[in-house]
């Protein structure tokens, strides 16, 4: 069963982060990805650039579309990356989610992927 692990973190933590901190957290992600790949459970995963680079396409009630400079919602934590994994059940997905390297205040949302 596939699950997407969506990583939400307070962005300012990264904006003001030292080089050493960034190297460390990237290293942790690399190690975790390698472990997931080795277990045969990694489908894909990536980090995202900051919300200042985000553009949102908004479709209003009448169907008209417009562009919004920024993320869909201005919240303290923003989506910063994701992993798509394939594991037996929710407990396995949650176990990986707990191991995500996140900064204080970070949240990992676990969502099962729809089955068609």
């Amino acid at each position: 069963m596939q699950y997407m692990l969506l990583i939400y973190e307070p962005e300012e933590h990264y904006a003001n982060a030292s080089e050493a901190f960034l190297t460390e957290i990237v290293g942790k992600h690399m190690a975790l990805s390698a472990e997931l790949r080795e277990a045969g459970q990694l489908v894909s995963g990536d980090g995202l650039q900051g919300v200042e680079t985000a553009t949102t396409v908004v479709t209003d009630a009448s169907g008209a579309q417009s562009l919004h400079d920024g993320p869909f919602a201005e919240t303290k934590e923003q989506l910063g990356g994701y992993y798509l994994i394939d594991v037996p059940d929710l407990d396995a997905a949650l176990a990986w989610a707990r191991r995500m390297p996140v900064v204080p205040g970070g949240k990992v949302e676990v969502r099962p992927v729809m089955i068609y």
Partner: protein
Amino acid sequence: MDVGALISQSRSRVVAALAARFRDLDLAEDAFSDAALTALAVWPADPPRDPAAWLWRAALRRGLDAVRRSKVRTDAVHDIPPPEPTPEDLAMLADAPIPDERLRLIFVCCHPALAPEARAALTLKVVCGLSTERLARAFLVGEPAMLQRITRAKKKIAAAGVPFEVPARAARPERLGAVLATLEIAYAQAYEDAALAGDAADFAAEVLRLSGLLAELLPDDPEVLALAALVRFAEARRPARLDDLGAMVPLGEQDVAQWTERLIGEGARLLDRAAGEKSTGPYRILAAIHGAHLARRESGATPWPTIAALYDALILLRPGPVTAVNRAVAVGMARGAEAGLAALEAIRTDRDLGAWLPWQAARAGLCEQAGRPAKALAALDAALALEPAPAERLYLVRRRAMLRGRPAG
């Protein structure tokens, strides 16, 4: 023969076996209900030798039919049940004793991925068979809201891939913690329910049975045993909790003759079994606190120093306003009203507890004990402004009248 009682006695075991077999709570409940309906019609004339086995066979057949009819549903289920049995397999399956899958079912219904309130409702619905209508009354929500809560939880279990397994050892403490917390919520609800409506004996009886079942399934876990003891101790006091006028009677003033001896004995035996274990968890301390209160039955006096010491230990394991307020009251009784008031003031700044009824009620008691009637009256007024339940309101009004030196009117 009471057909209804026979059916409900078999329910948890049969529903659990069906849920484990089909990996589908709705299907398990529906198949059981169908089988139960047939039983109601057939049993009076033709009583079964083994009611549970009869229901298991009938429900299993219905479940398999339902799976066959809705192949679409099976295809959408990720956690695919074993392949459909041939008629010979079925005959063997049905002849085999009903597998005891109740622990698995409890762990599924109490999965921490579900909100605590939803867990409690779902467990009481699926494991105990309480109706949505009864649960709505107990949890003080409308029936549609309760139905939605249960439906949503079932849907999440199916869609999010909650495994139908007893958790692995490493995950056990957390998962068991979720089960115990669920039972505690269920019991707290039964307790509240009784204070308001007085008709919760049936509801509380189910929670009692559920905690007993868990103690039977996990006989070596001290916290499980302690929780089972705890709900028995609390339930034992039910008959003494309200006076003839419907006012709340505080624990320390209850008539011990009204406490239910049988439940106290059961609880004490469960707690004794937990006592051999080394580790001490919060439920063991809580059960010990309740046990200490019940000791007044024999000694005639509440052992407040013991209770205060137990709260000192509990507050470390389970901090929070409820423990803190109860501890302050115990400290007041054991070490003097000033010490109790100091403990109460120390926690006031946590989340504006001044607007919390138990805090004001405790303050009123401690101020009165400290010989400060004006402050006690102010706290009583504050408590009464916080919309206490009818039984507590009556009690607080009476206390206020006594402090003012005139009878309640």
